[in-house]
């Protein structure tokens, strides 16, 4: 990997992403944990920009940092009495750590083993620099031959989930 603006940006956004994730795992105060989560999600948005997906980066900022992050912050504050828990992890945390480390080892081996052939995980350069744009994404989402059915179904799913969330979280007045 040669040293240029892109690789420097990749390293910076990787550090932001991983650092934020470690902050989520390690912080005692969950309000701070939710802020660390937003930091990590911002790093992922930067990675999307590097992968020439600017629309996804914008959606990542708006939906994840704007909506999900605020939602989680509110949930932490509404369950306030537990935000300063003395014990961060459950008693089997070492088992979880071993399982996660094993999973990471398997994933790293799977990525780095040269068994996927050309165009596999070790590809140094994309197959072409002709990248579909946001306009293409917009067309694909309403094109009858592409993603209009999944698009409508996912809209329905989101509506149902929101109504369900309101019903579940509403206080019962009997």
């Amino acid at each position: 990997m040669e040293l240029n603006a892109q690789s420097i940006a990749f390293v910076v956004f990787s550090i932001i992403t991983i650092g934020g994730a470690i902050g989520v795992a390690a912080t005692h105060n969950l309000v701070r944990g939710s802020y660390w989560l937003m930091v990590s999600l911002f790093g992922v948005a930067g990675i999307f920009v590097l992968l020439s997906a600017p629309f996804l980066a914008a959606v990542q900022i708006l939906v994840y940092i704007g909506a999900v992050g605020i939602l989680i912050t509110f949930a932490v504050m509404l369950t306030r009495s537990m935000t300063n828990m003395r014990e961060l992890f459950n008693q089997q945390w070492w088992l979880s750590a071993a399982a996660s480390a094993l999973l990471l080892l398997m994933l790293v081996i799977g990525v780095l083993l040269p068994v996927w052939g050309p165009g596999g995980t070790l590809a140094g350069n994309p197959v072409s620099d002709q990248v579909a744009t946001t306009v293409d994404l917009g067309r694909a989402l309403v094109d009858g031959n592409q993603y209009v059915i999944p698009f409508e179904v996912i809209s329905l799913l989101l509506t149902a989930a929101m109504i369900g969330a309101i019903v579940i979280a509403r206080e019962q007045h009997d």
Partner: protein
Amino acid sequence: MVPLYLYLLLAAVLFCIGTYVVLARKNAVAVLMGVELMLNAVNINLVAFWRFDTPSTMMGQAFAAFVMVVAAAEAAVGLAIIIAVYRFRKSVVIEEVAELKG
């Protein structure tokens, strides 16, 4: 261009941190945060493979967008359940909420 495997390694590390958070944290809200981290790692993988293997179609980006929508729905329903459970049990520690009926 940064090679593909670096993106995949980044996603793998992020996914495993998320897995650890999901498995080890006691607070239910923290567990949901771990799920969000895992979904984001999957999204990095989807977009990276799209960019390197099929950049002229819309498959990867469309899938990543769908994953984001599902993640938003999951966060809304999950947090609603956590708040409902907290109102009922005065606790968000997962181990103390082991029974569905109570």
